[in-house]
């Protein structure tokens, strides 16, 4: 094989030391267009092309070694300045970051920018309050709030507190990342483009757990302490509790959510495991998940009806639970309790997720390549179920993030999980943080109904991306 190295040969200007063993046939200048016979002509051509000394190495011809007519042709063609050296270009590409990697990096930068912006922007800039009677007063108050923000940014004004904003946005970013990556893993592991984190009934299981908590434990809960109206009294009461009691009081509903999710998922997996002959069938599992989810939704509606007919005060709690997300004040303890499991699982998913590529093959082919498909598939699905359950338990219902974001990201980055997982993680975080920030500018009450807006915007995004890349784009893999 010939040496194709780029070392600066002494070919330019150097005369051959000895005569070759075989007389090289003389092709003449007319045989290969652009070939110059002498080194002087080659140097002149190089100058004409505007190349410097270093780049001339690309165009060095092996005057010394003559390996025959056909071999020399490729090197000879390099004399034309419009020719591309395929091999060195390929080597350059090997060392450069791929385009998908660049997209991931861009998303990471975008996430940092959006996060900082979201934390810094004051909430409720555009909010309508009851005291504003006309559009002019609203506009004036908007200007006032924006003025305070700009004076803060330009280091002129007094600082304003962004007490719990950082915690909240941390949890939102983690939640968005977790949901999006869960969706990507579900779609890959179940090999169905319609799968999402709610496919196995995780979200409805969390809802059911929360409803059970409201039904049976509400009186002793954090929110149910009706008689302790002032926050100071609540804090006083909480400080009298032991650690365990404190955790149960404040995080009791999250715990019930987790238990509910676990029960539902275990049930679904049990049914599909017992019913299949060769391994677990994903169709049975998905259908069972759908049925259980619909059933839980119907039972919750029935319970609401029951409460409304009997005039129970817990109806409002249940109604608000179904719609709201991120409505708590997030303390550092919340961030730690929710964030650490989510972060750990995210890291695990990132590292183990690259092996999901092999599941694109059929079961037999993947096994014959040595992959343990059962462990891989159900391990990843279990990990993502845990992720989703933790997010729903601490944040509430946020729909459609785990379904739409992986689809959109797949159409941009491609179906390779090496890039799909980090990209969907980052894109999900950006998506949720941006939407929450935009909504919180309109006031607190709007931002908690984030589910509607994630669905709307996610759906619109997806349709726009799908329309722009019709037919076989990077992402059409099912």
């Amino acid at each position: 094989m010939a040496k194709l190295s780029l070392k600066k040969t002494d070919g330019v200007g150097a005369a051959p030391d000895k005569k070759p063993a075989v007389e090289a046939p003389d092709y003449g200048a007319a045989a290969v267009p652009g070939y110059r016979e002498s080194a002087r002509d080659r140097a002149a051509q190089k100058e004409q092309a505007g190349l410097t000394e270093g780049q001339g190495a690309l165009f060095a011809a092996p005057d010394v070694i003559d390996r025959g007519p056909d071999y020399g042709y490729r090197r000879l063609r390099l004399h034309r300045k419009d020719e591309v050296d395929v091999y060195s270009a390929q080597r350059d590409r090997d060392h450069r970051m791929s385009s998908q990697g660049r997209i991931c990096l861009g998303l990471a930068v975008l996430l940092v920018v959006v996060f900082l912006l979201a934390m810094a922007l004051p909430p409720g800039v555009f909010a309508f309050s009851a005291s504003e009677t006309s559009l002019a007063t609203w506009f004036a108050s908007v200007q006032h709030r924006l003025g305070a923000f700009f004076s803060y940014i330009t280091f002129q004004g007094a600082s304003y507190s962004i007490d719990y904003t950082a915690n909240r946005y941390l949890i939102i970013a983690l939640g968005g990342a977790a949901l999006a990556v869960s969706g990507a893993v579900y779609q890959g592991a179940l090999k169905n483009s319609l799968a999402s984190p709610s496919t196995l009934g995780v979200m409805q299981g969390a809802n059911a757990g929360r409803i059970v908590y409201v039904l049976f434990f509400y009186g002793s809960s954090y929110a149910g302490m009706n008689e302790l109206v002032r926050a100071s009294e609540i804090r006083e009461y909480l400080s009298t509790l032991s650690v365990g009691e404190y955790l149960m009081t404040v995080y009791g509903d999250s715990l019930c959510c987790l238990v509910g999710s676990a029960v539902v998922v275990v049930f679904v997996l049990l049914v599909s495991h017992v019913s299949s002959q060769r391994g677990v069938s994903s169709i049975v599992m998905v259908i069972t998940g759908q049925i259980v989810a619909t059933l839980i939704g119907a039972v919750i509606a029935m319970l609401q009806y029951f409460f409304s007919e009997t005039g129970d005060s817990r109806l409002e709690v249940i109604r608000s639970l179904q719609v709201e997300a991120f409505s708590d004040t997030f303390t550092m303890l919340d961030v730690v309790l929710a964030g650490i499991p989510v972060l750990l699982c995210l890291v695990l998913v990132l590292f183990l997720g690259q092996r999901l590529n092999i599941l694109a093959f059929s079961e037999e082919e993947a096994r014959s390549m040595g992959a343990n498909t059962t462990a891989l598939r159900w391990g990843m699905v279990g990990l993502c179920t845990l992720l989703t359950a933790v997010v729903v338990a601490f944040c509430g219902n946020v729909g459609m993030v785990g379904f739409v974001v992986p689809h959109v990201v797949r159409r941009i980055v491609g179906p390779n999980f090496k890039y799909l997982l980090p990209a969907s993680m980052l894109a999900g975080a950006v998506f949720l943080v941006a939407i929450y920030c935009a909504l919180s500018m309109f006031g607190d009450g709007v931002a908690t109904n984030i589910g509607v807006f994630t669905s709307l915007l996610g759906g619109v995004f997806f349709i726009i991306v799908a329309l722009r890349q019709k037919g076989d784009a990077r992402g059409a893999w099912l």
Partner: protein
Amino acid sequence: MALGFKGEQSILERYERDRASLRLKTMVALGVLLVLVLFSLCTGTSRFGLLYSPLEVVGCYGTWLQLNVVALIDPSVLLHKTELLEQYPMYYEVIARLAYTFITVVCGMLLAVAGMLYQNVFRNPIAAPSMLGVTSGISFGCMMMVWVFGQAAASATFYDLRFAFCFVGGVVVLLIVLALGGLVSGKRTLNMLDVMLVATILTGILNAVINYVVNSVFSDTEWTAYFEVSNVTDLTFTPLSLGVLVVVSLLCCIPVFWTRFQMNAVAFSDQEMRLLGVSPVKLRLIALACGSLMIVVAQTYVGTAAMISLVVPFVSRGIFGAEFRRQAIGNVLIGAIVLLACRILISFIPFVGDGVPLGTMVSLVTLPAFAWVMVVAQRQWNNN
């Protein structure tokens, strides 16, 4: 019928056995349906757990015939109307129950057949319950009705208007889904996966909007009105609505009956279907149009009981076989049986208002049945 080769006898035997077993299954299903219908006709509606004797029920029907049919010939019967009605104090209840049993049976058939059509066309059983977003469209129509009319929307005066809202909602969503799916698929094609994707997204959006409006914007009375409208908890009906149901059911069934042999070809890929002389686009359009119309009509009358469309085709495919006509028979009978059984259970389980909503009861009944089917019978069926 002599086939003329060595294994002929065993094939004929197997064929005969197969036909006999199909006949047996159909008879058993018909028998169960008949029993349930008779039981439902005798159930009372004024309170839970009420059962009238069959003689009284037959007497009520006789009275109805006298007052309505015989009166056309001999109007003097109407003079005795008060005495006849006094004889049967449960008259209106029983007649209403007859109409409602009929509606339930027909809607069960429609839901199951629609589910079967969708599963045939899409070859993806996950798509079945969302029904191309039609269910969300119907719920959206109910929500709009409560938005516009307030808590009065649940009253009997708006019963016929409810059909208009739900129907328009369902059809509009379906058209949007098809149009967007067609745009996303590309020029002059309709890729089913893209349509399902668009439908899932639109369903998600609609459900989120409906969830938000119903739970956050509506007052308590409006929430109750929305619940009653979307679950059809009351038992009123009008002759117009019955007539529309019958006409639309027949209209939907005609194309399905016409293509009942060609529908078997969907087991092959598109190219092979064309080689066989079957047009896949035509079958898909028929299945989509008829299935969606059936779903919209059935859910307008009976509320959102979408689980039947998912589970019953699965079950009937296993029991009756995968051939289209057999599947259709199985779906028709089992769908009617399931919905009627749920309706009877509702009349016997005490709850607030008019009882457990039908959709909830269907889900409650379907889940264990599905689990049993999956665990026990799946192994014998050897499908997928």
